[in-house]
């Protein structure tokens, strides 16, 4: 009889309150080890597409913002291509990394990403996905990183047809994934628990 032999994934553990030491040392003043914090800059002067700012906070079950969270985002460029070796559909904008990492402010809990608005990317069956940004959130008390997505409020039609948003059974929860817009600034608040709990993904 054939026996299937697979390894198990290493189990996750919390990033703890001092994640900055390893991931954003310059942010907490531990200068001189790395020249700059990885993921701090996603764009440069030559990046193509519409520049946007994404701000927000991460709230616990009492509505208190987390002061020790770290967020990472991953997204397509303005044409819908990923700056990744696994991208086989074409070459992404070399002046846009697609990946960002930001700690929240230690006093206010606010995070801020300077990026570009992503283009649409295909779902595996060929349908279009609405423009979106993948989020990954770690912090003390979070035992395994939380995955979610941010969508854009002005993309009403695309959002209505999005294959992932369409999977959300309780339609009242869809707005938890849609940012609020003010000019080129989007606010995306994340609620770990409570009435407005953000939809988190098992991907």
């Amino acid at each position, binding site marked *: 009889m054939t026996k299937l032999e697979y*390894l198990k*994934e290493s189990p996750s*553990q919390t990033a703890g309150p001092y994640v900055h030491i*390893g991931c954003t040392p310059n942010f907490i003043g531990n200068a001189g080890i790395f020249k700059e914090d990885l993921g701090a800059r996603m764009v440069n002067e030559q990046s193509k597409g519409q520049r946007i700012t994404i701000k927000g906070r991460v709230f616990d079950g009492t509505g208190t913002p987390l002061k020790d969270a770290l967020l990472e985002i991953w997204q397509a460029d303005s044409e819908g291509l990923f700056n990744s070796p696994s991208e086989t559909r074409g070459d992404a904008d070399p002046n846009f990394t697609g990946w960002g990492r930001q700690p929240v402010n230690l006093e206010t809990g606010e995070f801020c990403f300077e990026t570009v608005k992503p283009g649409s990317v*295909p779902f595996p069956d060929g349908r279009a996905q609405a423009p979106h940004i993948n989020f990954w959130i770690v912090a*003390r008390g979070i035992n395994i990183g939380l995955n979610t997505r941010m969508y854009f409020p002005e993309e009403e039609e695309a959002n209505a047809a999005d294959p992932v948003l369409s999977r959300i059974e309780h339609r009242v929860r869809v707005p938890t994934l849609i940012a609020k817009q003010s000019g080129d600034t989007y606010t995306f608040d994340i609620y770990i*628990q409570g009435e407005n709990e953000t939809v988190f993904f*098992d991907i």
Partner: protein
Amino acid sequence: MSKPTTNAGPFFPRDRNWHPQALSPNYKTSVLRSPQKALLSFGNTISETTGPVFGHNMLGELDHDLVLNYAKPGESALGERIIVHGHVMDEEAKPVPNALVEVWQANAGGRYRHKKDGYLAPLDPNFGGCGRVTTDENGYYAFRTIRPGPYPWPNGVNDWRPSHIHFSLFGSGFAQRLITQMYFEGDPHIPMCPIVRTINDPAAIEMLVAKLDMNHTVPMDARAYRFDIVLRGRRSTMFENRMEGN
């Protein structure tokens, strides 16, 4: 050894009973920081199967040497000198090359170089507690550091963390992203720790316990610990769903 993974398909589903549960009441901070509603499961799209990759040329000369990378010239960090090394593989035991491994830890006295850590143990002026390395073409990594000390933390009245090193890993796709902790073989604090015990299966905990490796120890210099890491495997794209007729 098998060949490095070249698949670009979806990742194997995560075994969420193997990983710690989000809500683990004995780790008190998790109570208000765990989602209460079910996660939405869906197969990977290209947003999850792609991910950033970091080149070896991004790294500084001492990024993998925590004994020296914060030390004044001619000095070095205090504590038990150790080399931590191992393979990063996927669930099919294929090596994961070019994986970025970031580490951070307390000093030999159990104190972190962080403005929010007020533990009594003193800072070591020669120790920053931060390093990084990328795996080679065979998925192998190694860095040098000092063994971190255990320290007390406010959870129960008298909870102590076992000596541990935090690890952050990037594979080839964003859905492989993983943060975990490495413990040291023989540490009596491991089975007592509420954070370790967020993991239910003893075999899963065992994966996070590094083994003393005398063969890689550098005589008269530093002992070695072996710590292998497994990231999610992925399918080939050969039979993935496409629109009929495409």
